[in-house]
């Protein structure tokens, strides 16, 4: 009993520590990096700076998963969802850009909470790039996929109920994903953000974006309900209680 109380106390302390670290990163570290970076590179080569800031903005989620209370079941389910989204790229590799990573990230976000959704998307990006090639674009993919999972978690009440909302979210997440990635492709060429070049990137990427939208909607409509049922069942079976 005594041990239990001690454990809970240290847990609470841990949670407090996490929120302090999160605030430090958001309020102090990121602005400092931006300030020093703009001074250092004065007006050119912002691409690297952007990649660093993007990577830093993923760190709070990683820290809160590391230090937070997480059961083994949750970890294993997260691993399964990541592996499924990476593997999905194989199953559907016959059609270019037609991949279920976004859909599975969204489903994880809806049924397992926003944090798990973020981690599923971000880690799926890291992992699939071990196969498809790491590069400076990895942090951008991490953030883009992670955010789709996080927002899905926040909107889970509506996305669970209405199929229309789900399809709309799939379309929007496809557009947002390619817009975030186009920021990178536009900046990567000469290091500064040129709005004309960005627009050109978006326009030339329309076919890809359309494929993303179609694949997201198809996968979400087909997979969301059955996979959701399976996740709910496993959650019940493994006794995972969500505290949000």
């Amino acid at each position, binding site marked *: 009993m005594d041990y239990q109380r001690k454990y809970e106390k240290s847990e609470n302390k841990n949670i407090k520590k996490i929120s302090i670290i999160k605030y430090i990163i958001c309020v102090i570290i990121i602005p400092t990096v931006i300030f020093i970076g703009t001074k250092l590179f004065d007006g050119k*080569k912002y691409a690297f700076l952007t990649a660093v800031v993007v990577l830093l903005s993923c760190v709070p989620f*990683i820290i809160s998963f590391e230090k937070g209370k997480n059961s083994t079941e949750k970890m294993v389910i997260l*691993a399964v969802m990541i*592996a499924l989204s990476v593997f999905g790229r194989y199953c559907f590799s016959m059609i270019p850009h037609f991949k279920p990573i976004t859909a599975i990230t969204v489903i994880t976000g809806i049924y397992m909470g926003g944090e798990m959704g973020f981690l599923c998307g971000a*880690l799926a990006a890291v992992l699939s790039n*071990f196969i498809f090639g790491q590069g*400076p674009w990895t942090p951008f993919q991490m953030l883009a996929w992670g955010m789709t999972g996080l927002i899905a978690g926040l909107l889970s009440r509506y996305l669970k109920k209405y199929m229309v909302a789900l399809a709309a979210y799939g379309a929007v997440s496809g557009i947002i994903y390619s817009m975030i990635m186009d920021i990178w492709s536009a900046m990567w*060429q000469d290091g500064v953000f040129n709005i004309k070049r960005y627009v050109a990137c978006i326009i030339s990427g329309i076919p890809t974006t359309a494929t993303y939208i179609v694949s997201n909607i198809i996968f979400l409509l087909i997979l969301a309900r059955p996979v959701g049922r399976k996740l709910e069942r496993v959650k019940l079976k493994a006794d995972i209680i969500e505290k949000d």
Partner: protein
Amino acid sequence: MNDKMKIFNTYHPLGLFIYFASAIVITMFMINPVMLTIAIISGIAFVLTLTDIRTFLKNLAYEIPFFILIALTNPLFSHNGVTPLFFLNGNAVTLEAVLYGLDMGIMILGVIYWCKCYSIIVDSEKFIYLFGKAIPKLSLVLSMALKFVPVFKRQYRKISDAQKCFGYYATDSYFDKIRNALRVFSCLITWSLESSIDTSVAMKAKGYGLKGRTHFHNFRFHIRDLFLIAVTLFMDIVVFTGIGTDIIDFRFYPKITQINLNAESIAVYGAFIILMFMPAFLEIKEKIKWKYYVERI
């Protein structure tokens, strides 16, 4: 060819990570064409020692159009510079912008080659070892997910074969293929979620999360790793001093400046050559050694 046969692969992950981080970051920051030429030639040399020439040429078919695209589109978006070549829709296409586009194309190709080498050398095992101490839970999740991918592949084939035996979707039509893939995928999800619970029960039974557990890894820190890190950091200091003090400064806009070729800048170029050609040199040295020993037998 086996990746495990490469000498650079046997170095300690820490040294490798520092090395690749500095090589890629320095290449990303460069504008100076001499430095970029060094970066791309060394990157190609390193890629060639790691992969066979056929894959290299096959990838080149994608990379050259990409390079041309970057080089050609830059003058369309950027009208800086003082030497107009011709006018397009009332906007000047300048010599500076064309050359800057070429320069950026070389930079991007260099970074792509170095990232390719990074992907080959620093594989997931090394990555997880490196970050295992900082993010123990997530690196466990990553390594579990890595293990699940081939397991799922096998299971997918099993389910798919079973479904075909039932006679489901055995036709060659495109639509049926997609429906089959989705159906098998759904079965796979059920199976994997169920078996994941078994995994977590087994993990708990074996005491995951208790204090005092250690992890197995096969990396050892040798003197040569220390040597690699020391050389890398020293060359980094030299190159960053060169960048900071404008010794190797080079500008395209508004007018192309002269390439510095005094003693100091040549020292910086030399340091960069040593840094970037180190892995290719080590691989070639090993290859010659191997050939020599084979001939002696």
